[in-house]
């Protein structure tokens, strides 16, 4: 007989990690079963709580999170935040604790959104920013700011970005008063490169030579321009040594150097994924990696058996209580067969995608209806439909009724629902022991 675990969490994204931490804090045994990369790898690495409230015509940008939350719940009283807003603080706290153990610090108070210039030339308003973004907050920016790109780097064009930053900064941060100046750097070691990606730059800046060349090039530029009060560069300051690198640049140049916010599938997202994994390890939370959960069933002894595939073998794990944090469409938590949507691991149908749910405009006002697809849950995050109704818990992108793409609420809902699901699963496991 395999060993019995109190709580098994399926998924190791933001929801899964928070759920595991919350359950472990209740003094029960916890194990994560994870296939590895998921939606976390596709994000920007920041923790959003609420960035915008979708409107019929236009989305409302959120600066004060509490005000935004009221507006959101006023428009959509059945939004998960109606239940989850009280767990938000605890959820974020648990999540940040794991991140810190993995070497990643966040700044932010959860009250006001920071405004970070992003790689697309607009601004990203988000609640908790990783330390490498802290010198990039446009709300606090003033004076001449140098925005440096790299020759051949196809993902960021400083000239266009600066034009846009200068024009739109006040729309996002009313007090902003900065002049963004673009420059393109040419580093000696990369002189023969016509095209270079985020990944290659980040790997280069993880080496000492890379940082020496960058520091020298930035220093030159700073002296030529004169009067520069801060520098922004794209988010490529290394996969591993980003925190050290930033401090090193501050020290050598005497002015803060920040990274602008990333778009999707970025170096920063991979940093967050790595920090979560390392944080789990350092917190003593066990994870079965490269394991894809394929089925959950209830045994005769009234415990859950989780069947998973790992390295080509089928294995089983037993738990008193289960948290599903497998993600949505991205991540593999929800999948579709033709128009039918379902959650593969519990074989639970979620209805059909109809033409009405898909707006042909990519980013229509009010959001895409299919983005809100998910499983129904009770207020304690127990699943509220299907054969496991009331028996297992769900969190994160799996739950229905919110659209993180539009609201920029993904991390907040994931952390809050993960916290609640983890805690309640732990309590259920404790109760079933007798």
């Amino acid at each position: 007989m395999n060993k019995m675990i109190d709580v098994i969490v399926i998924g190791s994204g933001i929801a899964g990690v928070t759920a595991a931490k919350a359950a472990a804090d209740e003094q029960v045994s916890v194990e994560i079963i994870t296939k590895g990369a998921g939606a976390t790898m596709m994000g920007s690495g920041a923790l959003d709580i609420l960035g915008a409230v979708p409107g019929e015509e236009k989305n409302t940008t959120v600066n004060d999170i509490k005000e935004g939350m009221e507006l959101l719940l006023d428009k959509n009283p059945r939004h998960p935040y109606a239940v989850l807003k009280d767990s938000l603080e605890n959820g974020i706290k648990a999540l940040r604790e794991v991140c810190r153990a993995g070497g990643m610090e966040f700044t932010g108070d959860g009250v006001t959104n920071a405004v970070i210039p992003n790689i697309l030339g607009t601004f990203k308003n988000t609640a908790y920013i990783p330390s490498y973004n802290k010198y990039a907050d446009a709300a606090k920016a003033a004076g001449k700011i140098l925005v440096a790109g790299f020759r051949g780097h196809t993902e960021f064009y400083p000239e266009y970005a600066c034009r846009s930053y200068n024009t739109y900064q006040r729309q996002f941060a009313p007090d902003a008063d900065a002049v963004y100046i673009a420059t393109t750097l040419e580093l000696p070691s990369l002189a023969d490169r016509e095209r270079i990606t985020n990944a290659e730059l980040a790997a280069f800046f993880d080496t000492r030579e890379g940082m020496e060349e960058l520091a020298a090039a930035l220093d030159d530029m700073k002296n030529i321009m004169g009067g520069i009060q801060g520098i922004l560069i794209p988010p490529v300051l290394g996969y591993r040594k980003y925190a050290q690198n930033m401090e090193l640049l501050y020290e050598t140049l005497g002015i803060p150097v920040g990274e602008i916010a990333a778009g999707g599938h970025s170096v920063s997202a991979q940093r967050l994924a790595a920090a979560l994994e390392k944080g789990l390890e350092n917190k003593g939370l066990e994870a079965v990696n490269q394991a894809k959960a394929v089925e959950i069933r209830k045994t005769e002894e009234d415990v859950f058996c989780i069947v998973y595939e790992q390295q080509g073998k089928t294995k089983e794990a037993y738990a008193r209580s289960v948290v599903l944090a497998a993600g949505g469409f991205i991540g593999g938590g929800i999948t579709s067969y033709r128009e039918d949507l379902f959650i593969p691991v519990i074989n639970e149908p979620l209805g059909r995608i109809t033409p009405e749910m898909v707006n042909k405009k990519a980013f229509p006002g009010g959001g895409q209806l299919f983005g809100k697809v998910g499983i129904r849950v009770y207020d304690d995050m127990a699943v509220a439909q299907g054969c496991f109704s009331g028996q297992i818990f769900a969190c994160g992108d799996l739950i229905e009724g919110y659209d993180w793409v539009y609201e920029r609420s993904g991390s907040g809902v994931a952390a809050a629902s993960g916290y609640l699901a983890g805690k309640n699963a732990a309590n259920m496991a404790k109760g079933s022991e007798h």
Partner: protein
Amino acid sequence: MKDFNDIYYNSVECVRCSLCLDRCPAVRAAGTDKAPMYSSVYSALGSRFDLEMVTEEAFQCIDCYECESACPVNVPIADTMAYIRRLCKEKNTVPDGVESIVQKAENGENILGTPSKLPEGKAEIAVFLGYAGELDEEMQRAFDKICRAAGISYTFLTDTADSGYFLDRSGQSEGIQKAVETNVKAFERAQAKVIVTPCSYSFEAFRNYYPETYTYLHMSEFLSELLTEGKIKAAECMKPAAYHAAHMLTRKNDVKAPEELILWLSGQKAVQPERTGYRTSSSGLGGGLGLFYPELAAAVSERRARELAELGCGTVVTGCVFEKYALKEALREKEVEIIDITEYVAQAL
């Protein structure tokens, strides 16, 4: 090996996020602008109709599975590459330079060099050396030393063919059966019951294509057993070493014995680079696939060697002789020695 339906069904999910390309050691070693066609790999995956468009890329792939473990939506990228290689073989569109190497493997020759002839023997414990093991006399001597100390008789298998791994992964699926038969005959000649291999790729092949009448052990597992049973005795006398995890042991199988042996013999955890365990990085040769594009393989090997040298240990231990062979050159330039786990254990006796 996956068939077209599997690949078709699973590659529909590709979201073109390019995380696979970020991780691919071949792309990273060559540079994005020097390997521009790589973007076509996932285009081909997405469209599923132009698989032959990426023939060259498919043969540049060294099957390290870094792409697959980075994929958020589980597209079987490496298996697709292997599938394309098989398709190329069937349609005779294999790139120049590939055929001659594959021919060698099909003829039962060593693809890495010419090994010296080993004496034929009979014993219950038989060692399948694999391509790199046949050339690695230090490893053979180390194994001999261990067996003498343990008082067990063994034999090295002679006149063996490809284990099946290289033939399979380079697209020669019909050659496997013949190779397996040749090897099983060698097992029979030696009257073997337990087949031990120091090569992680051969170990993977044994797990997949061979009859279950024999027990297959990786060298590290065998040595670990000897120590546990007290047949050989070693104190905590070794210096701590850096460890390069062979991806066939840690990514595709769950063999942790080399790390455990290092912990046992040095009293300290092995020093490992950032990418290790199930996320370990390739040595460049990929069980022979790297031979098709040697410059690319050398660049990948150089990249891994740099990571290992940065750890600051004078010695790197690896669980696989093939990985040792692949990394040796790049590490020598950095004045770092690489030894197989067999040699590490032999040194402790």
